[in-house]
């Protein structure tokens, strides 16, 4: 058995790195990738806990992967649509919905 705490700590580190990326980057595609990173961090926590809490954790990870795939497909389609409009994927072009 691997150390549980080590896996959970790894999950926390990856999640924190993902958040930092989301805050600091402006490229929409890289923002998406940071979000994927955070999703994976959560997945890791599920998997690490599943031996103790039951197989359900792994089932949920499966769903998360499926939803992430759907999200990536739609999100990238949106980025393409915006790129056609603004010739850029800079997140500052996406600020028209404020106020």
């Amino acid at each position, binding site marked *: 058995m691997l150390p549980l705490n080590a*896996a959970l700590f*790894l999950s926390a580190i990856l999640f924190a790195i993902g958040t930092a990326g989301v805050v600091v980057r402006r*490229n929409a595609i890289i923002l998406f990738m940071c979000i994927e990173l955070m999703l994976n961090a959560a997945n890791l926590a599920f998997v690490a806990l599943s031996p103790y809490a039951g197989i359900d954790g792994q089932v949920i990870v499966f*769903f998360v992967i499926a939803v992430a795939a759907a999200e990536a497909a739609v999100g990238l389609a949106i980025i393409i649509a915006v790129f056609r409009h603004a010739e850029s994927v800079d997140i500052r072009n996406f600020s028209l919905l404020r106020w």
Partner: protein
Amino acid sequence: MLSQILFYFFAGVAIVSALMTVTRRNPVASALWLVGTFFALAAIYTLLGAFFIGIIQILVYAGAIMVLFLFVIMLLNLGNDFEPDFRGTVWKVMAAGSALVLLALLVRVVGGTESLLVATGGVDLVAAQVAEYGVVGAIGVPMFLDYVVPLQVTGLLLLVAVVGAVVLAKRDV
């Protein structure tokens, strides 16, 4: 012992790759480093006994999703490092600071979990399931019995995503 060494090795790879993902200016480089993270995570899943999830991780994430990302990057011709991508220093410091605070809090929250679980028995539930149903069956049985409705809803969601992606990306609707 070997599995422990392998775990720490892949954990190190995952952390380094994640950091490189966040810090690379070129989106193509970021994407490839992220693929590295996913591979390392797949290995860790396998080490944790989640063989099916490990395979899916490589197939879906590293294979399908990241290929999609790279495809879009190439399509939009973003594979350069000229664009001003990072926010200013103030935001960098705030991002790092908030990430560290969050990390500290998360470590503090999950830190006590192991002793708690070990104290309540620490029996490997997954191993028993795998022994009974096999690697795929251990996940498949609950998925098609207990989680059949969420499974169908997820399928519907994927269908909607496919249609939505086509509609959004089409040039003339």
